Every structure is written in C-alpha cells, then in structure tokens.
C-alpha cells in the first residue's frame, strides 16, 4: 500500500525536492524549451498545445508528439516532464519507455477514463497530479503520485482557482491537526481518503509529498502569491508563451519564485515585462468548459 519509505518512492519524491523554489514551464517545442532553460526554469513540461490553445481550439487533447518530445529531451539538460491523459496508463507507459523524468496525469488533456486514475505505484517514473482539495490530493498520493499541484484553471490566466485550491488544501490540513483519533476516522470518510494518509497528515501537518501550484499563473506576482500561501514551487502553463515577451517573462517568474517574500525584488522583476496573456473570467464560464472538474 503506502510505501513512503521504499527506495523507489523516496527517489521519486527526491526529484520533486530538487524542484522546490523553482518554476516548471509548459513548452510545445525545442525552441521554447531552450528559452525556458535559459531563463532558469527547473524543468519543462512537454505538451502539444498550451492550455489556452486547447481551450480555444477544442478537440481531443492527447499526449504530445513523440518526435517533438525527443527533440526537447535532446535540447535541454533540465528534467523534462510530459502529460498523459487521466486514466490513460498506456500513454504513461510509452512516456516511461521514452524516458521522461516526470509524468503529469493531467486534467488539461481530455480524460481517457472517467472513473479511474492511473495506478501510479506500478511505475518507476514519478507522477505529479492535480488536486482541488485535500481528499483529492490524498487519493492521488494513495495511487502513487510523488508530487501534488493545485489544478487551478489551466489556460485561464486567472489565479483565482489556484488560490482557492491551495487555500483549501492548507486549511484542510490544519483542521486535521486538531482532531482526535475517532474524528480522523470520520474525516477520512468525509474526505474520501485513506485513513492511514489522513492520520499521517494530522500528525505531520503537511502532505507526505511536495505541494506545488499550477493553473492560471501569469505574472511574477501570481507566482509569489501562491508561494506565500504555501506552494513550494510553481508550474506556469500558457502564462509564458502566450505573453508578449516570453524570455523576459520567464526570467521574471524565476526571480519571483526565489524572491516570493521580498516585495522590492518582486517590483524589480515585474518592471518592463510587456503584456501578460489575456485572462478569462472564470465565474462567467459554463461548468462544462472548466478543466478542473475533470478527474475526482
């Protein structure tokens, strides 16, 4: 079941530890990957289209083109992550065979299975999964995820959902720390999460794996905000390559992740950035257009 002390799991979490305090950037080709690495990204996420384009163009979003991913892996020396559809364990096995460093079982792609997520314990490659609340995070960890990120609302350029999700996860963890044993059993039922994991969080006051943020981060201030709220690193999707000057914005977000509690330095990083990506008002979007409701 839970193998927090197994060598394989420690090595999976170990890479996430190395990514802390950094920025993981979505890229669709080798040229973008190089821009991300040169700006100081700790890793790149290879995908076919950035979330803003998936949202605009519609259709089925799948694992990225193999040739493109190979080119990205040849071009940069930082870790390369790639997205697989929720429940699509064959895409995941192909990505493992390709040798990517992390797999994101992601709601940004079109789900392949509406009931089951991938059994991530069966893989040697580590997985990151999105979550909106503590129950969802613990279910993914039970399946073997070695890293959790907020779902936020990908491709929206709007930070409100990522804030909601990181605040929810942090608050629900705090609440567990004051409960007694019989209350934890009830809370495990309410959260829909394994009791053993609920007890672990209650005892330690944090997730058993690193906790990052994603989904709507478009500016250095956005990155700093979610890190102030408890995220240990950030993923930036459309925010970099849908802005007017990707190289400058990428560098600024990297500086913001390091200086997340220093307003003077954030001011410096935010100067002369050009236009951010256009944002969407999520409150006005129909539920069917939300990506965060994919998966459970």
């Amino acid at each position, binding site marked *: 079941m839970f193998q927090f002390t197994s*060598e394989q799991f*420690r*090595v999976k979490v*170990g*890479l996430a*530890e*190395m*990514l*802390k*305090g*950094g920025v993981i950037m979505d890229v669709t080709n080798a040229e973008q990957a190089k821009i991300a*690495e040169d*700006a*100081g*990204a*700790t*890793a790149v996420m290879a995908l076919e289209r950035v979330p803003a384009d998936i949202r605009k163009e519609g259709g089925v979003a799948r694992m990225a083109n193999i040739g493109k991913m190979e080119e990205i892996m040849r071009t940069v*020396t*930082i*870790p390369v992550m790639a997205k697989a559809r929720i429940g699509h364990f064959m895409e995941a096995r192909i990505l*493992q065979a390709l*040798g*990517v*460093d*992390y797999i994101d079982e992601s709601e940004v792609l079109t789900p392949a299975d509406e009931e089951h997520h991938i059994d991530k314990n069966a893989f*040697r*490659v*580590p997985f990151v999964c999105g979550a909106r609340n503590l129950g969802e995070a613990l279910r993914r960890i039970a399946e073997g995820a070695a890293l959790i990120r907020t779902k936020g609302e990908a491709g929206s350029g709007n930070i409100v959902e990522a804030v909601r999700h990181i605040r929810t996860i942090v608050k629900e963890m705090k609440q567990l720390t004051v409960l007694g044993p019989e209350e934890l059993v009830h809370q495990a039922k309410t959260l829909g999460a394994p009791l053993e994991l609920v007890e672990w969080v209650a005892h330690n006051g944090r997730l058993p794996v690193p906790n990052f943020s994603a989904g709507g981060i478009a500016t250095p201030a956005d990155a700093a905000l979610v890190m102030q709220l408890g995220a240990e690193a950030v993923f930036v999707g459309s925010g970099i390559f849908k802005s007017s000057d990707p190289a400058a914005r990428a*560098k600024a977000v*990297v*500086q913001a*992740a*390091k*200086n997340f509690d*220093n307003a003077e330095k954030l001011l410096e990083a935010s100067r002369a950035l050009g236009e951010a990506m256009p944002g969407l008002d999520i409150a006005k979007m129909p539920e069917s257009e939300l990506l965060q409701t994919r998966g459970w």
Partner: protein
Amino acid sequence: MKKVGVLALQGDFRAHGAALERAGAEPVYVREPEQLQDLDGLVIPGGESTTMLKLLNYEGLADALREFARHKPIFGTCAGAILMAHAVSGPAQESLALMDIDVERNAYGRQIDSRVAALDPEPEFLERTAPGQLEAVFIRAPIIRRVEHGAHVLARYRGDPVLVEQGRHLAATFHPELTSDGRVHALFLEKL
C-alpha cells in the same frame, strides 16, 4: 551553536536545514550576499544547477561566494557539487571553481536511473565519523571524473568518487540531506 548558511535560491534547502538541525547546528537560509557575514560555513544544496547559476548571476552572489570560500568551509551536494567543481561537462557550464574536481552532469542518465545505494566509505571517513555502510540517494546525479591537487576521496560508488574533500571544502554527488544518517553533515560540522 555553529551557524551554517544554506544557499536558498532554489532546491532542497529546507531538507539541508533540517539535517543541520539534527546534527546540532543552526541553519540560516541565505538569499542575499549580506547574509554571508557571520556564518561559520555554507551548504550549497541539491536542485537544478542551471537555475542556481542564473540566480547567482541575477543576484550578484557568485563573487560573494568565492570570497566566502577563501576563509570558510563550503559543502555542496549534487547541484552544489557541480557549482563547486573546477570544470563541468555534459554540457560545459560556468562554475565557482572552488575545488580541483571535474564533474559530468546527469552522468547516470535520466530520472529513471536515479537510485538509492549502500556505500562502503573509505576507512578515513569511518574513522572520522562512525562505522557502517553509508546510504546514498542519487537523483539525476553527476559523476566526478577527475580529482586532483590534494582533493581526496572519502567514498566511492562503483569506482567513481562520490564524496570528496579538499582542504576546508566538501562535495557529495548524492543527497545526505535525504537520509536519516547524519554522518556526512556531522563530518562537515567538524570542519567548521
């Protein structure tokens, strides 16, 4: 209590801070050059060496670290060891050149090749710390390809040096901060 800085630009600096506390030192998370002033030593943690290099340059910290290293001990793990090396390959990149070692990045392969190994350290390491095998966590680790000029090896894995000391400095290609064995941190604190 010894005050030991942990370079906190990016990476697993909190894990190093916790390991230093367990070993009986007070960690100070260093983000600005001024913070180096009254420290007894410094740890450069694991993380992405390319990211740390950019941030060192953005923040004007590289010269401050070179100056610090002339008087005080520095201990680098993984990315930290890459930054301390004289020359870096796979591909070539800048470094602080604090030790006479050459390092090849990602030399074991990708994440799928990351591993936990049990090492039999050199007798000198055991004499200076305590007996027993040493657990080493390698994450997309580099390999030390050359050790010269008084730099000497304290532990090897499959024949390659993984823990090297030169004068006041220490470099490991693995992550002692990610295990419960505190001997490598204790060895570093002995040098302060």
